[in-house]
């Protein structure tokens, strides 16, 4: 059995019914992530974007997630309560299919970091409409699975190259570092 460790799960709860479309979340996000901090402002650089289409009553704050090198094989388009959302609307990825979650000039991917170092993400702090609320909880997780995975891998390698050779390689690699 693997050891149990504690992990902090950070969740931003997005209540789209409460969003009033002001984009203060984008404003403060881009300011916080400017270099030096707060020195400039540009929602184009924000790691949150509000899909905002008042005439169709669409208000969806979406956070920047992982960078992916390739786009999906297909795209999705959601219709909820009769409202049609734009293609890939809820996806957090910075991906080649669109310009969302990329630095406007360089095209480098952006990713939400939950405003590390702050009490709570600033988008939450600046959302007086309470469309964004922050929750933290601790979860115990077992690391067993990861170890097992590694063991499976190593076993496969040992079968192929022999355990000695693998140990030699590991030592050589450690010395290099």
């Amino acid at each position, binding site marked *: 059995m693997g050891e149990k460790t504690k992990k902090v799960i950070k969740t931003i709860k997005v209540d789209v019914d409460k969003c*009033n*479309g*002001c*984009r*203060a979340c984008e*404003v*403060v996000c881009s*300011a916080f992530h*400017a270099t*030096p*901090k*707060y*020195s*400039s*402002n*540009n*929602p*184009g*650089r924000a790691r949150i974007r509000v899909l905002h*289409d*008042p*005439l*169709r*009553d669409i*208000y969806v704050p979406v956070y920047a997630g992982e960078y992916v090198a390739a786009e999906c094989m297909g795209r999705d388009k959601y219709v909820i309560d009769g409202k049609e959302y*734009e293609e890939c609307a809820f996806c957090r990825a910075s991906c080649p299919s669109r310009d969302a979650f990329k630095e*406007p*000039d360089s095209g480098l991917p952006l990713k939400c970091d939950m405003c590390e170092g702050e009490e709570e993400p600033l988008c939450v702090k*600046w*959302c*007086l*409409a309470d469309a964004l609320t922050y929750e933290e909880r601790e979860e115990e997780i077992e690391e067993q699975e990861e170890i097992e995975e590694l063991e499976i891998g190593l076993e496969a390698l040992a079968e192929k190259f022999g355990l000695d050779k693998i140990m030699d390689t590991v030592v050589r690699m450690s010395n290099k570092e």
Partner: protein
Amino acid sequence: MRYAETGFNLEIDLSRGSIERVETDPRDTELYLGGLGTNTKILWDRVPPEVEPFSPDNLLIFSAGLLCGTPAIGCNRTIVSTISPQTLLMAFSMMGGFWAPELKYAGYDKIIFRGKSPDLVYLWIHNDQVEIRDASHLAGKGAIETAELIKQELQEPRAQVAAIGLAGENRVYFASIEQGRSSASRGGIGAVMGDKGIKAIAVRGTRDINVARPDEYMELCNEVMDYIKWRNEHPIPGVMPILAGLGSPQEMAVHDEKWHTENFMWGNSRLRRKGFWNEEIEKQWTQTLESARKRLISCYNCPMKCGATLTLPGLPTYMMKCFSKLTYTMAAMSDLEFGLRIAQRATEYGVDGYSTPQVMAFAVELYEDGILTDEDMPGFPADNEERFYWLLDKIVRREGIGNVLADGTYWAAKTIGKGAEEYAHNTIKKHEQLPLKLSMLNPIYFLMYSTGEKINITQIEGQFPQAPFPKREQREEFVKDWFQVPDDRFKQYFLDWEPRGEKSIPFYPTPRMCCDIVDWQERMHYIDDALGMCAGLSSFPLKPPYHIHNYPKFISAGAGIDMDEEKLTQATKRYRTLVRAVNIRRGMRRKDEKPPQDHWKKRFPELEKELLDTYYEYKGWNEEGIPTKETLNALDLDYVAEDFIGRGILKDE
């Protein structure tokens, strides 16, 4: 490096189809801040008084405020300035929404249009890429519809679009510029946009706006945010609900309309309906608003929810805020359902929500009194509500009588004659006013109505309670945390102000105190209009988060201009005086500075003269309301003094 501003304007010559990106002089920012301040300087320099509103030489300036695009909460206003076809004076209507910050992010502080396009066009700005594009396919389209079509055509859902409807295209003197939930409506600036052949301006920007001292600036923003939270939880007791909180009056949220419906005038600003509001009406109107309203919505970077999206059965969705909710209803003596339905059409046509209902009610009254006849208005319906739709359609197309009415009540009355002037009774400087008729002269309001150059009472009032509180204890309570006052003497003015007796209106506050109070209220509006701040978080409500004590810090930390209260007051006085100078040069004088004759029943000619005399002197203006040479020189406006002397407006003494 320029802070808060971009340091660049776009100069568009529509006659030649040329586009230039022009660097601006940072010294102008120090002297006139930005927004209204620098707009006025440009109008003074480049639009001489001989230029007619519909001349190619008239300029139409769209400006973001100095602090738009920074994280200053609620700082999102576009200040549009030109010469008004209706008043023939400077118009500087404004709009909130999302447009001004987007312009800043695209890299520009202002767009200055001159000339006239031979064909209908729209402007598309995407950072460095600026194009004049054909808009012939958009002719006659609604303002909101146009914005949607342009975003589709450009495949830019994040572009912000300001557009005119049919009224602007047809140069209706009270045509607006619409932008989502917001519009720049007053003074007929939409007509100038139409005259220049501009259907819309679409903008998308992804550039940085810098601030000079980031940590300090952010701390100021956070203080404002905290105060807004506190203020939302602590409405001011003893005043009516729409004046107790922050933001624009929360008309989209409230259902109790007893105060408006019983104190404001109905029809052609004639009829007061005391006892109108009852349970049945409240139930019906509540249901109308509840079922039409999809969501309460905000402007850019603002936590207040002053606007709403409205969907009425069978009609496209539109957006509204503030008192347009009731202006059509009350002008037509109808109900809320009618008011919200016709407002949808009016918004697409792009017309001002104050002037338009009044112009239509004026026409109906003229018809009922036989001054306008079936000959003038063939096909005029018998049904009251249909009449208003009919008039609206005629006006925006300038068809038949609509062509006369499209000039507003003042000019229409002159054209119609036969005593019609008596019916155009609710204008100041030729511009329709809120339908309010009261009893006892209020000396503070007398001065604001008379001298306000935005010619709209809501754009000069604020800060100081509209009426005294009944009891001294209530007043003492009110002044306790009233830190926004520029000086403690304002607290004393209010403490001593009684509803009745010696220290009550019209003789108290004294003329001198009234000058002080009006000057403070006006100053805060002018600061907002240069910075791009919404009056709803600043100059309009009582005890707002922005005030004369933190504004200098915002400007210093944001724009990197050394600022203190005195310097800010001086700068504001400078461009406020320059607005007056533009208008004086166009012929405005003391005779034009008066509220509608019937605004109050009880008038006091001697006191009114004393009030105006005292205020002019307080402002450094002569008995005609013209800034004196001394005043102008003290404000670094020597060039205005020279111009005035050259034209014989001032004597060289």
